[in-house]
């Protein structure tokens, strides 16, 4: 049995950053990071392109370089990072069961941080009908295949989604010698992606097909084509391709949170946390894309820095106030994170609330309501666009009563 002060599940940006912050104070080997993969670093490891580290490292590096830096920092700080260590369940309030090649372990810690991240919904979860040929991947699988295993993909790809990660998939495909012949998105406003369109057009001859969904996968053995539908008109056409990449549509890897019986946020589907990133079980915290699937790696890392402060307070015996009010997202927002405001608590990470919108709002006039009263209203100078996190300054919640009714964020 291992008895560290803190056990962190997941050696991605959030977990590693939390470890690097906590280890110097807890002592060498007192912070244990467990990861099921063969190498620590999380998703950035196989995102072999630049754009990482702006907000936390204050410089721009590639995904693999970013992952290496975070691993080195956590190790140097004295954290014990174990890979090929899969947490398979709970054996107590803050006690985990772990499988590793050197045996089954039990870890009893004083605090647990869940930083298990998120994954993209595969084809089945998106209920895409048709045949079951080879050649259908999520971005995660594609990047793993190409960047870590140097495997070949096909020659003509269709990419479903037009989010940041979708463009990342296009880059990976290009590196693998596979041309993206079409990108589709169910959203009907191409302008939502203007930021990506400019560089995107250089990569992609065809424009993004907006308001379009995949209605059938065709192919015996290998993918041969997909059928797409323009939702407004119902017109369908077949696009020949041998590779289909399903991007975006994130779901947190919340298995441990659910099997612990933690309160979940119905919107994010991650554990419900307060602004200190505490879950409903004392001493169990959560950080990163498990809470907001999906935001960038550096935002996840800053969650890790934030949660470390509150884990320390917990270890020092600080008890949170019992009274809390829910923070609720109103239409067109699908979710808001964090979802609880507790009396006496700090601002959330980066002094921001994170929201996910169902439709493009170019000039969002965000409102905060409580107990039927409009408390604040402010025009946010950036659009709320589907496919990426919409960030709202925390001070918009000034005057809310942490002992009152639910705080509603809407437009």
């Amino acid at each position: 049995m291992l008895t560290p002060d803190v056990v962190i599940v997941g050696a991605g940006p959030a977990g590693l950053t939390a470890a690097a912050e906590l280890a110097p104070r807890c002592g060498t080997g007192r912070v244990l990071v467990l990861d099921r993969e063969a190498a620590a670093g999380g998703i950035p490891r196989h995102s072999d392109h630049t754009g990482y580290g702006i907000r936390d490292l204050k410089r721009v590096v590639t995904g693999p370089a970013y992952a290496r830096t975070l691993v080195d920092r956590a190790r140097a700080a004295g954290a014990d990072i174990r890979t090929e260590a899969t947490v398979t369940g709970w054996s107590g309030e803050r006690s985990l069961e772990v499988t590793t090649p050197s045996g089954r372990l039990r870890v009893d810690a004083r605090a647990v941080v869940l930083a298990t991240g998120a994954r993209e919904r595969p084809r089945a979860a998106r209920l895409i009908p048709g045949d079951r040929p080879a050649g259908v991947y999520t971005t995660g699988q594609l990047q793993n295949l190409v960047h870590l295993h140097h495997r070949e993909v096909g020659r003509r790809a269709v990419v479903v989604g037009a989010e940041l990660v979708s463009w990342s998939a296009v880059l990976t495909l290009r590196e693998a010698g596979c041309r993206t012949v079409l990108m589709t998105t169910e959203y009907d406003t191409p302008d939502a992606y203007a930021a990506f369109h400019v560089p995107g057009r250089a990569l992609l001859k065809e424009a993004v097909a907006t308001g379009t969904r995949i209605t059938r996968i065709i192919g015996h053995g290998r993918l041969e084509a997909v059928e797409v539908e323009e939702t407004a008109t119902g017109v369908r056409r077949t696009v020949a391709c041998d590779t289909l990449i399903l991007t975006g549509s994130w779901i947190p890897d919340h298995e441990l949170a659910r099997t612990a019986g933690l309160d979940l946020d119905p919107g994010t589907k991650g554990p419900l946390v307060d602004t200190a990133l505490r879950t409903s079980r004392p001493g169990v915290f959560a950080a990163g894309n498990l809470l907001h699937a999906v935001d960038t790696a550096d935002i996840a890392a800053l969650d890790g820095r934030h949660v470390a402060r509150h884990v320390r307070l917990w270890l020092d015996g600080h008890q949170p106030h019992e009274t809390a009010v829910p923070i609720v997202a109103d239409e067109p927002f699908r979710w808001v994170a964090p979802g609880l405001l507790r009396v006496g608590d700090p601002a959330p990470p980066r002094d921001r609330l994170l929201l996910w919108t169902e439709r493009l709002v170019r000039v969002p006039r965000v409102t905060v309501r409580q107990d039927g009263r409009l408390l604040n209203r402010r025009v946010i100078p950036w659009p709320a666009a589907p496919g990426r996190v919409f960030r709202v300054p925390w001070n918009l919640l000034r005057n809310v009563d942490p002992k009152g009714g639910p705080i509603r964020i809407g437009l």
Partner: protein
Amino acid sequence: MTEHSPPAGPGARGEVNEQANEQVNESVYDKVYDVAVIGAGVVGSAIARDLSGHDLSVVLLDARDDVGDGTSKANTAILHTGFDAKPGTLESRLVRRGYELLSAYADDTGIPVERTGALLVAWTPEEQDALPGLREKAVANGYEHCEPVTAEEVYRQVPALGPGALGGLTVPDESIICTWTTTLALATDATARGTTVLLGHRVDAVEGAEAGTEGTAAGESTAGTEAAPGGDTTTLRTSRGSVTARWVVNAAGLGADALDGLFGHRRFTVTPRRGELLVFDKLARPLADRIVLPVPSSLGKGVLISPTIYGNVMLGPTAEDLTDRTDTGTSESGFEFLRTKGTRLMPTLLEEEVTASYAGLRAAIDHGDYLIEPSPEQRYLLVGGIRSTGLTASLAIAEHVRGVLAEAGLKLEPRLDLPEPPRMPNLGEAYLRPYQDAALIAEDSAYGRIVCFCERVTEGEIRDAYRSPLPPAGLDGLRRRTRAMNGRCQGFYCGATVDALMATKGGTCQEAAK
């Protein structure tokens, strides 16, 4: 019951069984077998296993590159009591007997079985009125444990059911089983007993003294009911070479009617009936701890909710008659139907993530019962029309087939030197899996190296699959032997590693990373 009709294309699903190619040497084509069983599904494998328990040489052929790759792989995987069979039929008798035989065989071999029980739920007054009749039918089928229950009891047993249930009937012994392991265990057992397994061998033509080759009507044979020793034989022309046998058993599932035609018969037509299924995330399993059955109507058995042996929850199947025997694609209308049905039956289930969707084809025939008919003059036996209950009945069908063949003239001397039945790797969520087994990991670290995170499949299990007597032919075969890549991420994390392990044919992760 595997598919006999031409496969979807060369190397359907992109799989080519190199092992099968390597292993087949010329001598398998020179030999004259006592019995050739066509179709390495659950039924054909059970028959081959049973016959090779006698002093006979047996060959098991299949058009596909793997065993259990046709109808058997997409079964609803229920071990049936047979409570709702048509009383007096061969099917009723064999399902009842098969339940006992397969339960015992599962204990011997480690095929996972969970005794979940089932609950039939009545949603309309008509359905409620039908319950007493179903109970009587169960009794007529020799099953006496069904009990009527009130609506309150229905909700006590399955609290997640949608509103409106009026009552129910319990079937305490209805169980779930692993259909993949069952077929694999039977085929492995048959191999150990000496059966020659020829995969990737599609039977295209039949020749022989008595075979109804084109232009020759069946029944013109002058042969007696007893096969002359060393006498007349049938030659099966396959896609890879000719196989000769004294007796032929047709267990070709979806292709059974076409093969029957090659023997000159026009007994029946197989209609491929497509059933689509949705498999929900393991986190949904607490919602359904037993099988929830609809009350059967004139429109068929309807949509059920069932826990799976792998710890998921399944919703389905649809029932749609097709003409294309290779169309195992899912459809928009099928999904829509399941979603609508599911929302009514168990709304909270539909809020869970879907892990997989499947479509399977069952061999529906224009005949109300199993069709097990010998043609002694041709030394040929048809085993057709084995529907969904064939998994449960498989061992009883094999036993029955043995009797029919003996009566038709096949000499059967039980062997006294039979090998022990194989111990199969456990795929069941309710039993100890390698990743949980501290002693096993201490002995061999490969069982502590989890490769597929969602299903917790270890490097050791993938290696073992490749070292087994019937190694996987491709990804689908590996999935059925280990559960690898069957989980919620469907390869997001593990797909590339599994791919690499397949390329090394079950090497280590370290080798695979090179």
